[in-house]
């Protein structure tokens, strides 16, 4: 497969579209009500302009391209101290806006190509990918450990390689290997079983989506797993009748929807297959009256928008040919694919739930702090950033924070523990599983 993954030089013209105006530094809404808050986790933590939103990262990109900056430990560290959350991108209004995360990741790709990246602590991610096909150094047999309760309850989950199913539940490595996040696949599979969805999993044959490799700049490892996955999806569709790939993992969802689309054979590989996040799958059933929610959960909850299911799914409108404004002009964006309303609608549909919104939501959601390889590379900072988000959630008076990403799940719970907060993060599927009538 051919891939359209840009190198830094190819993005040079975009890099020079940044004025360094600093609009990217603050999440600001004119309102009413008028709101202003930090948006860049790295900027808030480290402060210097180099760390501050896209303004600083673009400076590094300029310097690397012009030869005024050369790799050293400190520069490398600064480039990896970014969650690639795209909060800065949401603020920017200039022509390079659509390319900001791409520019940051292109610097990381250059670092990897030049043999200096990623950070030493992140190298184990790609080493693990090569050895185990997952970033957690987990033997493949462990990948299905979360399914044990189902076997025990004599409700085994189909192995889609052995038994055909219409829906492939792509679990993702975090849900499978990260113990605290295993509640996410457990709840997802439980819901599907209760609803009678004909689904199966790849089990021990599932391999990583490659998202983490892409985020830290290892494009070759990303391409390897992505191509293998695309071939698997195509085979399952042709041979097993898979029509839908559903995932509860925000990172996998973004990777398959967005990163994989950079492959030349993407459209053909996914021809006849719909890729959908679990919450959208459930929301569609809710609209059709096929999601019976019973009982009550009398909790006040706040909702955290993951970057991967939110602004990362923006579609940018660019005047490629210069027919409307000028060549390469940023015209606007389409948020149609961003999962902002759907999780909220589902939450509101759960009897007893009271949704209390934080100040920074939707496109201005404040990153949990774990993305972009930061959880592995800078665990302490990732958790301290999550603590900030948990504190923001607590200010709403909510008892729980809810999200739809196993990565956020793990990191925000770490953040809560760090500040001894009573607030806990739950995945939306965990709540829905509670109010879906049991099979018995």
């Amino acid at each position, binding site marked *: 497969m051919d891939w359209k993954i840009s190198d830094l030089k190819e993005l040079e013209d975009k890099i020079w579209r*940044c004025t*360094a105006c600093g609009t990217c530094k603050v999440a600001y809404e004119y309102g009413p009500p008028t709101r202003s808050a930090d948006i860049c986790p790295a900027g808030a933590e480290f402060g210097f302009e180099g760390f501050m939103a896209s303004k600083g990262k673009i400076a590094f990109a300029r310097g690397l391209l012009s030869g005024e900056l050369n790799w050293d430990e400190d520069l490398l560290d600064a480039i990896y101290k970014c969650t690639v959350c795209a909060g800065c991108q949401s603020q920017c209004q200039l*022509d390079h806006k659509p390319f900001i995360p791409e520019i940051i990741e292109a610097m990381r790709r250059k670092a990897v190509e030049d043999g200096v990246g990623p950070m030493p602590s992140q190298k184990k991610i790609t080493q693990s990918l090569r050895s185990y096909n997952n970033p957690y150094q987990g033997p493949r047999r462990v990948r299905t450990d979360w399914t044990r309760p189902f076997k025990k309850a004599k409700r085994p989950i189909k192995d889609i390689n052995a038994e055909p199913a219409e829906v492939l539940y792509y679990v993702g490595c975090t849900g499978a290997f990260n113990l605290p996040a295993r509640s996410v696949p457990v709840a997802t599979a439980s819901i599907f079983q209760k609803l009678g969805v004909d689904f199966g999993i790849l089990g021990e044959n599932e391999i990583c989506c490659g998202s983490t490799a892409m985020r830290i700049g290892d494009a070759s490892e990303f391409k390897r797993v992505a191509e293998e996955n695309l071939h698997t999806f195509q085979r399952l569709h042709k041979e097993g009748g898979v029509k839908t790939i559903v995932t509860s993992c925000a990172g996998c969802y973004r990777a398959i929807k967005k990163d994989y689309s950079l492959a030349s054979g993407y459209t053909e590989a996914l021809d006849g297959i719909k890729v959908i996040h679990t919450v959208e799958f459930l929301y569609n059933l809710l609209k059709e009256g096929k999601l019976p929610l019973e009982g009550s959960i009398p909790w006040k909850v706040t909702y955290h928008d993951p970057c991967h299911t939110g602004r990362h799914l923006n579609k940018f409108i660019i005047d490629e040919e210069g027919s409307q404004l000028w060549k390469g002009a940023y015209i606007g964006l389409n948020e149609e694919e961003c999962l902002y309303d759907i999780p909220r609608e589902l939450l509101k549909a759960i009897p007893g739930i009271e949704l209390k919104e934080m100040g920074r939501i939707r496109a201005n959601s404040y990153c949990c702090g774990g993305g972009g390889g930061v959880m592995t590379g800078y665990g302490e900072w990732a958790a301290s950033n999550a603590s900030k988000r948990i504190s923001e959630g607590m200010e709403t008076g909510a008892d729980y924070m809810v999200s739809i990403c196993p990565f956020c799940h793990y990191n925000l719970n770490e953040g809560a523990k760090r500040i001894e907060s009573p607030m806990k993060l739950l995945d939306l599927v965990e709540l829905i599983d509670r109010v879906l009538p049991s099979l018995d």
Partner: protein
Amino acid sequence: MHARNKELIVKELQSIVGEKNATGAKHICYAYSYDLSFVKPKLPDFVVMPSTVEQVQGILTFANKERIPVVPYTAGTNIGGLTIPERGGIIVDLKRMNKIIEIDPEALVAVIEPGVSHAQLAAALAPHGLRFGWPVGPPSASVSSCAISHGIGGMNARYGLQSQEITSMEVVLPTGEVVRAGSCAINPEAWHSVLPMPQLDGLFKGWLGTTGIVTKLGINVHHSPPLLKIFTVCCDNVDDMYSYMLNLSNYEICDDLTGVSWWLAQVPIPYPYKPKPEKDPEWFSYATTYSFTQKEKESKEEIWSLVLDQEKQKGTSIKETHYPEEALKARTQLPSQIVGSTKNYCKQGGAGISWPGTFTPAKKWAPVYKKWKEILISHNLSPSVRMSMYRGVHYGMLRAMIPFNKQSEKETENARQAIVECLRVDLDMGGIPYKPPVDFAVEINKRAHQGYLMLLKKVKAMLDPNDIMNPGKLGF
């Protein structure tokens, strides 16, 4: 600078502000070496981020002892290269001093630290029904830097310049002492006025950070009347626009009274120059008014209609017009990150924007504009000019926002030459540039009264005997 010395200086700075808040790393310094303007990038040697007044004192005392240049920095959003170090040294990034110390909704005074952004203050004032005159700049820009640099805002026609809103200040001198000007100098709790004492705040306003670091600033804030009415007109030439603005300004009903040329009314500004369609008017104006009651609003409408009639009777080409809604929002919903950001004007150019930004007698606006138009078009640049009337006087801001392609040295130099040429024209007609880059300072000094220059140098030498504060920015 010798590496060993550099290491020792970083250690010293870290002992003042903490290890994580001082660095000499090249990539960090690089991010402070350029801005939007045509000013050539120059590297600082160090960057520090103090969070207390005592730390600022520590930095300045050390820098003064070691004769190391110091450049105060808040957001770096000016377009005159004001924080690009002429002689290296230490950038003092004040973004961590960002507390809103007090908002007194009864006295209509706020006390802020230098790192407070427009967005931050706007969000804090809104619940009180209060506002400040936000400039057409990014939300992250600093309130205090704009005010002490005589920046303009959206209420200039009603309350004057941002610097006229200053009520008190606390400053750390280049030699490390903390000083105060205004009422807070007599009573530390009183931040309401710089008068009736000698206006020592003048020692730090308009000096481009060359006399000290302002660490607290008292400013007037204002009630936000609920009823907005914007009067928009257009006309065929700058003389007619001047006539209209002069007439309307006499009634003092506007918060903002501004005229913009066709090229500036386009967002973004066309780059390179493109001719205006013949049928389009050359000038537009928006006059922003706020009223507390419907009756007050109607009275303002009556006055405006009267002015419009008078202008028509004079035979001018002034007529009421529709101003594009998005562009209008940019002028009224401030601070704004959408079209409100001045920096969005330069989208088409590509990264660069600079200006001849001046305070010019209103009666000279038309002749200056005509010359600027010739100069700018000859450089293939748009004559994207704005004229704004200040409070109750017949002078105001006259500026041209000039985008350019910063990736190209040739195009950057072309813009610089055109802008400096424009500035000379304005200076010769009595205008004075504000937030001037060094190129402008040199032109000012060429024309300055010798007594003025002598006084300027004496005051500077008194406050900053070792010339460490943003050296070179005053053009000497």
